[in-house]
């Protein structure tokens, strides 16, 4: 299967996709995860290991030091959907590791379960079986409040349909995660600083001129850029992107990809991107293919 993609801007010896049928030999096993024997661990290439995200990571004790740079890990994920009496299996045991600083693409056809996988990784849903580890902590069975907190502070998400709040301006949309983090008074106190930060971030994604615009006054590309700014405002450790270019034309999509890539290289941001577009996926450091709810060996 070993599907190699040379990740273009990341460097000639960029990381390779190497899902192996080998038991994890890294620190993950030290956490005593279930013996999901199908666990796929990437043979950590030198490049992957070296990309250790600068320790901007907040309160999590150690940046998975023992995991050899594994930031996010899924072990034997299973998820069924129930449609009436029928049970539709979507994920049938997925193992995945995401290393610090890589841009990982998960590619698959419609219905292959790639969005479901992303939702599970983002703690928006719970797996029926399997485990998810983030920064050395198991998160799939954490309490709702802990998961909310995790999403708010350490995970960033962007979506195919941008999912901006239509009532808020671009700036307010970007500030929304901070408003969720801070209570009324705490936000009021720090408002000036936070707004400056949001403005700077919008500037970074190229939307400095769109601060006061509502989503319906912006183009698709602009909305996605705003969504990226929103995902990054809390300085997350990982960005989860669900078909980030799926609703954009080729050029605009490419622009988004370049933005993601530059964030990846310049800020060492770990990105997991789900797409059905192999052209987009080919720009990633590493590609994992999902077929019928399993990581494909093709």
């Amino acid at each position: 299967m070993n599907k190699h993609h040379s990740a273009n801007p990341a460097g000639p010896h960029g990381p390779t996709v190497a899902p192996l049928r080998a038991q994890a030999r890294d620190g993950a096993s030290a956490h005593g995860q279930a013996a999901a024997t199908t666990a796929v661990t990437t043979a950590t290439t030198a490049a992957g290991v070296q990309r250790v995200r600068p320790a901007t990571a907040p309160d999590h004790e150690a940046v998975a030091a023992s995991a050899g740079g594994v930031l996010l890990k899924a072990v034997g994920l299973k998820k069924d959907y129930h449609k009436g009496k029928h049970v539709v299996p979507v994920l049938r045991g997925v193992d995945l590791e995401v290393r610090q600083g890589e841009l990982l693409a998960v590619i698959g056809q419609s219905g292959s379960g790639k969005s479901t996988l992303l939702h599970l990784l983002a703690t928006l849903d719970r797996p029926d079986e399997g485990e998810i580890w983030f920064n050395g902590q198991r998160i799939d069975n954490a309490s709702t409040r802990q998961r909310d907190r995790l999403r708010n502070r350490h995970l960033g998400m962007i979506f195919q349909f941008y999912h901006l709040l239509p009532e808020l301006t671009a700036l307010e949309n970007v500030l929304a995660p901070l408003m969720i983090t801070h209570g009324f008074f705490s936000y009021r106190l720090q408002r000036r600083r936070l707004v400056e930060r949001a403005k700077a971030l919008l500037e970074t994604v190229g939307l400095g001129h769109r601060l006061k615009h509502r989503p319906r006054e912006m183009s698709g590309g602009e909305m996605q850029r705003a969504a990226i700014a929103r995902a990054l405002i809390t300085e997350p450790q990982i960005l989860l992107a669900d078909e980030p270019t799926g609703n954009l034309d080729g050029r605009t999509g490419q622009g988004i990809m370049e933005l993601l890539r530059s964030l990846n290289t310049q800020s060492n941001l770990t990105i997991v991107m789900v797409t059905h577009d192999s052209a987009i996926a080919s720009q990633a450091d590493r590609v994992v293919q999902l077929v019928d709810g399993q990581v494909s060996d093709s």
Partner: protein
Amino acid sequence: MYKFLLCWRYLRTRWIALASIISVTLGVATMIVVNAVMAGFTQEMQDRIRGILSDVSFEARSFNGFRDPEYHMREIEKIVGDEIEVMTPTVTVPAMLSFQLHGEWNTRPVQLIGIPRDAMQYASKFRQYLQHPKHREQFRFELQETGYDLRDRHGGEDAPLRVRMETAGMVHRRNMIEYRRQWEQQLAGKPLPHAEQTVNDDSQPANDVVDPFAAVERPLDPFAARNDAAQADPAAPLTGCVLGIGLVSYRHNGAEHFLVLPGDDIQLTFPTAGTPPKAVSDTFTVVDLYESKMTEYDSSFIFVPLDKLQELRGMFDRESGTTFVTSIQIKLKDESRGSIVRDKLQAAFPPHFYSVSTWRDKQGPLLAAVEMETAILNMLLFLIIAVAGFGILAIFFMIVVEKTKDIGILKSLGAHGSGIMGIFLSYGLSLGLVGAGAGMVLGLLFVRHINEIRIWLGNLTGQMVFDPSIYYFYEIPTSVNPWTVAWIVIGALAIAVAASVMPALRAARLHPVEALRYE
């Protein structure tokens, strides 16, 4: 923070929600108005009842009354002396009123009340309901020269004129005697002398005011004059009495007409205190009219001096020099302690001889009826607000469905279910505040201008909305109790919030993935 921002944005972008709140506004406004009017009416009525009834009355069960009121008052003093401001012995007896009209005798049943001549102690408001300004200051059963109120003084300038009230008093009395004299002379076939009849009248200007039609309106019974003729001064008033205004007045073409004016004589017939009772009659001069606006009292009470009534009914014991009365009216320092005083007195005096009651006991059914009406109206109106609550519920569900995706987004950004719930609860609270606040302002404005609105409505529809001749009010009485208003507003707010709880819960429980997928 995002809760308030989003709540505010939703408020500003969803005007349809305000439609659901209009019913809350109207409900709150109506409740405030109804409560103010009912409270005003109750208060007015209680004032009127208390104007005539004392706080506690200590009564004999027999018309013959009990002996020696002074002794009884001393006994009462011993039991509840601390509570009492003043006590007044009175005699109450059913009687027949007879007066002449167009030469015919009119009779009607009345309640005759004998009160002390100075009438100072008797329920303090009694004097306020008299028609002569001087009598309202001090009243001693004396006929005034003239100057009785020409209009209902509660009605202001709008009140209809009282027909022929300008001559009421001594002037009217002398006029009547003069007419009678002339009538008798005419009957005797003598020519009408013109100069000499005014000699006795001390050249009062009254003759100039005389209504020439008065004689036509009231042809006189020649026999009625006999009583007066026997007097040394035919114009000198007899024992005074005060008639309830409803006994002798009627409204016609918007004016108040009187069958009997102050200055006229009337006859009262009532039972003596002996066994068996015999009917006795005597003639009294009407010195004033009593108008409390409580129809029940105005059309049945006649007040006469206590000593005269006792004398006529034989309510005295020559040997011991003691008198009899039928009741002792007690005015308390603190009216609210009436039932305590009543209970103490009931315990102290044999109940088969004496009955003790507070004014509330006497008007219990009436007050209870008004209270009942208020309660039922409040319940119905509150149901209206509750119905409005269901409107809010429906619209909120709609908004939650519409905002499903936003809820998913917020959850993906890490918003907790309670925060999402907070958005919709504060949304409901804000709508409730707007609705109840607007309702409160509307209701209070309506109450404040209720009489202008009444007149305006009357002009608009050409129909008297609140006819004073029926209700005996010239203005709709209102009384706003701040606590009532506060409770109504709080209730409306609670309903608005309660109606938003279910949609808010639904929003909080939405599954983020499904919410995000929602199209």
